[in-house]
């Protein structure tokens, strides 16, 4: 157990020691919430959506958390695959390594969501802060799942980052409020989380069915991410 705690703390430290990560942690929410809220509204209008005002700001905070979490999820798998497998082979085991990785990812997700939510709170205020924070966190958790799955298949940093960005763009611009909501939008994993976040931004509550859906999606994303960490750390039988 102490091995998991130590490795989880080390994996978290590994990311927080990267200066660019810290800069992006603050810059991305600022960009999405402060700068692009009005632009998001114009984009939405052009794409047939209707999001605007505080809902656009709230959605921006969700997307900032999602993009950051997706990128970090990708690098957690892709950049450390060999070292993690070595640690697992040395006796730590693939399951504890995966548990340490997912714990570090959840902590990073909480941090990212906290910063995004704080920016939103300071910039726009929000009628339903608890709803908004949970929805932003769920954006982050879903993208941790997406990032780790991409990292399982693609190890090259450029290719992996572009793939995460590509998924993010499709997801962002086909999501609720940003488009008519039909077709591809129905299949995107953040659809319900975006519904909840847009509603929280507009000062409205969301139905229980939406909350159950977003919680199940986040749980599924975390299970997938844990599986991806396990696959990358597990020893190969000869």
């Amino acid at each position, binding site marked *: 157990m*102490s*091995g998991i705690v*130590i*490795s989880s703390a*080390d*994996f978290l*430290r*590994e*990311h927080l*020691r*990267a200066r660019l990560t810290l800069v992006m942690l603050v810059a991305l929410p600022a960009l999405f919430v402060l700068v692009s809220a009005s632009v998001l509204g114009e984009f939405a209008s052009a794409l047939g959506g209707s999001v605007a005002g505080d809902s656009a700001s709230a959605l921006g905070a969700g997307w900032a958390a999602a993009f950051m979490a997706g990128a970090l999820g990708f690098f957690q798998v892709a*950049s*450390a695959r*060999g*070292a993690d*497998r*070595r*640690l*697992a*082979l*040395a*006796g*730590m085991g693939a399951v504890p390594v995966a548990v340490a990785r997912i714990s570090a990812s959840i902590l990073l997700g909480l941090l990212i969501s906290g910063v995004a939510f704080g920016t939103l709170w300071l910039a726009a205020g929000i009628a339903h802060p608890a709803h908004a924070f949970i929805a932003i966190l769920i954006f982050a958790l879903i993208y941790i799942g997406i990032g780790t799955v991409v990292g399982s298949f693609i190890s090259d940093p450029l290719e992996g980052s572009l793939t995460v960005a590509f998924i993010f763009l499709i997801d962002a611009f086909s999501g609720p409020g940003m488009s008519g909501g039909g077709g591809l939008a129905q299949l995107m994993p953040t659809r319900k989380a975006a519904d909840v976040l847009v509603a929280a931004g507009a000062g409205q509550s969301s139905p229980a069915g939406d909350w159950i859906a977003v919680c199940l999606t986040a749980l599924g994303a975390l299970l997938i991410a844990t599986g991806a960490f396990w696959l990358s750390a597990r*020893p*190969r*039988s*000869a």
Partner: protein
Amino acid sequence: MTRNPIAALAPTAGTPKTGEAETVMRAEGVKKGFHRGLPPRRRRTEVLKGASLEVRRGELVGLVGENGSGKSTLMKIVVGMMEGDGGEIERNGKLGYCPQTPLLWEKLTVAEHFELFARAYDLDQTEADSTSQSLLAELQFERYRGYRIEDLSGGTRQKLNLALALMHGPDLLLLDEPYSGFDWETYLRFWEMSERRRDQGMGILIVSHFLSERERLDRVYELRDGRCIEA
């Protein structure tokens, strides 16, 4: 392909270097191929075509071969980093593995690496501290204890890479191009360390494309055309 650990051996320091010494690793008929290119030009290259070798306790064994002959592939299969297509691996006792490319975390310090691997090897705090201190001294990189990996030279990274493989006193030590980046003094110290551990009963396999110190080795295999030939 199956992995059948043979019966555990009690540590026997100073076991004589004879053919009767117990086997700590045996690879039998290991096969591995890789697909390259995209259809319709996709081709399969067979790198290992039934490679067999063994390492006994108290033996210093070399594995040589040209670039691309499959030495590192064989090593990864023996360790469990890569899946083989066929054959059998038997390993016994604690394993120490020093990969060709140091597999480390760039943002963590040398001390944090020792701490992580001490947990993985299940060493208690006292044992972990004394072992890491003695390896830092033996390989002469104590002053880098608090440095992050991203700030280390290639040679110092390689020292840590080697130290992490040694810190739990393995029965079998697998070293893949272990001295790349070492200066001459460290290179000589590496051989002294290896011989000392061999004399204490450790089975050591050193993989290299070029072994200039053949007289230091008990046996040498050459990997040629996917098979190991004892030279």
